[in-house]
């Protein structure tokens, strides 16, 4: 009987695919999935349609709880990992519980990135990454008519479409840094700007935000170098940062994400990373790459699980290609998913 305990940190597409793959190939091992949110696995890329009322909350969920019971996968929701002690093969949860593991897959995903110069205004910004974020937007949009979207990641474009269908006035301030890991250039900027303008969005040329002031619950004033803008809400869409801060003391090598090789191995035996939190060198672009997107995350989760079980699978890290999205041409697979 195989009594090994495999722990997966992260309840998103990479984590769930990893869990399912482990169970498929190792029927007797213990599998635990730890998720920070209190809800079961859902597709965050559908959140804009959920906000617009096109989808119900049930439509977002990927697998019911029965799936985990049936597959004997222990699902621990609403639990935050605060430390990983790889030498002792232990992880520490916020409520001080220690869990031992024999194999570990880190699939913590990403969290909204706020550029350093805007972090002092973070409390006035609304992101859209999680289901609670979406519910906060639904509440807010009932009371306001206009939204300023700052940044330019793909969620922001999908969300903008949703806002337009709801009859909201949308201002859009494109900021190049938001396109990470995509190399932002003038072509992308012009393409995005033209498409948004055609759809009725007021595009504001990239400017430095000098200040954000809350006038009331439903009115925010945004000061740039040249204008003052009164809007109902400020949406922060600067892309995602791998959610790896809690690993700072683990000894893992972290740059933007957890650095792994093409088999998703970290520096430590039996410890893998997959999905939006894994950073792997990509010879095709001569650079490190964080492969973002639902499908990519699932593929990486599967590869990590197989390798943890002793396979030699090389991750299919999406090569950069040309994709079309609402007539916008962009150079990454990331965009195709939203």
């Amino acid at each position, binding site marked *: 009987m195989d009594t090994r305990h495999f722990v997966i940190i992260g309840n998103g597409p990479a984590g769930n695919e990893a869990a399912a793959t482990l169970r498929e190939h190792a029927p007797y091992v213990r599998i635990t999935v730890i998720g920070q949110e209190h809800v079961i696995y859902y597709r965050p890329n559908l959140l804009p349609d959920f906000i617009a009322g096109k989808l119900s909350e049930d439509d977002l969920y990927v697998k019911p709880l029965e799936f985990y019971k049936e597959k004997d996968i222990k699902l621990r929701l609403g639990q935050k990992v*605060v430390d990983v002690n790889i030498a002792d093969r232990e992880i520490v949860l916020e409520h001080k519980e220690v869990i031992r593991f024999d194999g570990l897959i880190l699939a913590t995903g990403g969290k909204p990135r706020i550029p350093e110069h805007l972090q002092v205004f973070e409390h006035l910004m609304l992101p859209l990454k999680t289901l609670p974020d979406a519910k906060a937007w639904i509440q807010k949009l009932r009371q306001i008519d206009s939204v300023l979207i700052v940044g330019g990641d793909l969620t922001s474009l999908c969300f903008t479409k949703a806002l337009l269908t709801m009859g909201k006035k949308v201002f859009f301030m494109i900021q190049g840094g938001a396109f990470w890991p995509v190399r932002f250039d003038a072509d992308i900027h012009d393409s995005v700007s033209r498409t948004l303008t055609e759809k009725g969005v007021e595009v504001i040329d990239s400017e430095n935000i000098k200040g954000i002031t809350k006038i009331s619950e439903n009115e925010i004033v945004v000061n740039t170098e040249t204008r003052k803008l009164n809007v109902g809400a400020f949406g922060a869409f600067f892309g995602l940062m791998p959610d790896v801060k809690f690993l700072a003391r683990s000894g893992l090598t972290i*740059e933007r994400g957890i650095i792994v090789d093409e088999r998703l191995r970290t520096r430590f035996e039996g410890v893998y990373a997959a999905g939006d939190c894994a950073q792997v060198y990509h010879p095709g672009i001569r*650079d490190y790459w964080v492969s973002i997107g639902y499908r990519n995350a699932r593929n990486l989760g599967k590869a990590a699980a197989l390798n943890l079980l002793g396979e030699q699978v090389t991750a299919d890290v999406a090569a950069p290609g040309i994709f079309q999205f609402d007539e916008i041409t962009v150079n990454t697979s990331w965009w195709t998913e939203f």
Partner: protein
Amino acid sequence: MDTNIHQTEMLYSNSPADFDYVRVNVPCQSACPAYTNIPAYIRSLYEGKYDNSYELNRIVNLMPGVLGRICSRPCEEKCRHGEPELGKPVNICHIKRAADDHKNAFEPPRGGLFGSLDERICIVGAGPAGLAAAHDLATLGAKVTILEALAEPGGMLMYGIPEFRLPRQVLGEEIGNILKLGVELKTGVRVGKDVAVEDLMSGYDAVLLAAGCYTARMLEIPGENLVGVYPGLDFVMQVADGNPPRVGDSVVVLGAGFTAFDCARIALRLGAKEVSICIRGTEQDLRVTHEEIFETKREGISIQGLLLSQRLVGSDKVEGVEFVRTQPGELLPNGRRRIEPIAGSEFIQAADTVIVAIGQGADPIPSPGEKDKRGVVKGDPETFRTSLPGLYVAGDFMTGPSTVIESIAAGRKAAEKIAESLSGKKFREWTVRIQDARITDRQRSWDMIPRQEMPTIDPSHRLHPFNIEVELGLPKELAHEEAKRCYLCYLHYEIDISRCIYCRLCIDSAPRDCIKLAEDVVLSESGAISKIVETGSWQNVSAIMIDNERCIRCGECVRVCPVDCISVSKVELTERAVGGI
């Protein structure tokens, strides 16, 4: 304010076990090269005694106003508040600055209280090590002269750190307080050129070489001689000297230390449009504080990791840097990470200014005596003696680049050894002071107070005027709030097992596993407790013990104990005069 500390008994111990206890249980003080009594000065500030808090710093680190701004903060890396599940370390450094900001005018002690050392001593170099040695030797009664090659005293503090991080008025005041002790300063005197070491040795009873490190290291890759390429140290020194170099629109800084960050931030203030700091490893490998990284990024400077420069390209003027991407490997014995280039990943990044800030070394001074492989006079790390009687060496000049607090500690230690050599007697010693104490008014809820971060000027207002100080200092209210977070690790908690009724209330109330059912204890060679052997069986319990290595001094166990069997004492590493000076 009632400190709730009643002093019924005080003793001084030189037992290795007690030193070992402090090393393990007061991690902040042990991590400070100068052994600053951090819990004591934080507690003083909490009590509103800003003068006392400043003085508790000054007596060992000499420049609290300076260090409160630019210290590398090894203490914060060891602060218990930064351990897993406990949050962020206490903002120790900025509390130090708050003590300086809010104190009354400080006047250093004058002669009359000083020791009996009457010798004439010459110190070469008015940097942190030289000034620290001068301070201590002067207080022992020596007649000290400092010879400084540059126009102003302060060394790297004056010429290596930009004013927006360290205002010159703060630096000037604290240097002035050292000179007021009767130290003579002669600037513009380059030893080895204007005056020979041999002449100094014949004119003084002792000569201490503490000339620092002023030769910038280069990468030794092709293209470093192109126009538009600056050594980082030269770059910051020219700015400090009032002759800032011209920078282009696009600046690349190569380096991972404070000088690299200073160069990048200066370049932005000199008008560069895009500035990036390129490093071989990752942000984890940087040797600067998190605050420095954050503020640098806030100003719009990017940090690009996993890049190794191969050559600088350009025809007559630099036009870019050819990088190869790197792969981090395992940690090396020196604490750094092995970095390996990835073959085939070369690319060129455009730049019209490149600043190479990868470190610096000592510029040897012509002198007799045995030299090390750098050509610098060789010194003993313990005694600071060279091969020649009466000639000593200390600080960065002896060891290579170090931090300011390490230089100050080295200068003080060198002064102690010089005084001992000249007089044949010991003036001071480190000892462990132990005194009865009682639980403080510290509350468990204070453990949840978030770290109070340093307020700074908005990035859009930082560039003009050029030298405006970025950090504003903690107002009294914030400093007081931050001081509450300190666990006061100098307090030692102990259970009197002869009175303990084993009710377990302390265990139940403990915020972490700091109270243990012990079957046995293992002592280290020094006699200190090195390990508590725990047991889960009541039959085997021989004592219920507080594991001071895990204790966060929240005091909760003392409050809940129904039989008042938990005592508190204060244990401090402190310096004291030996037999009166």
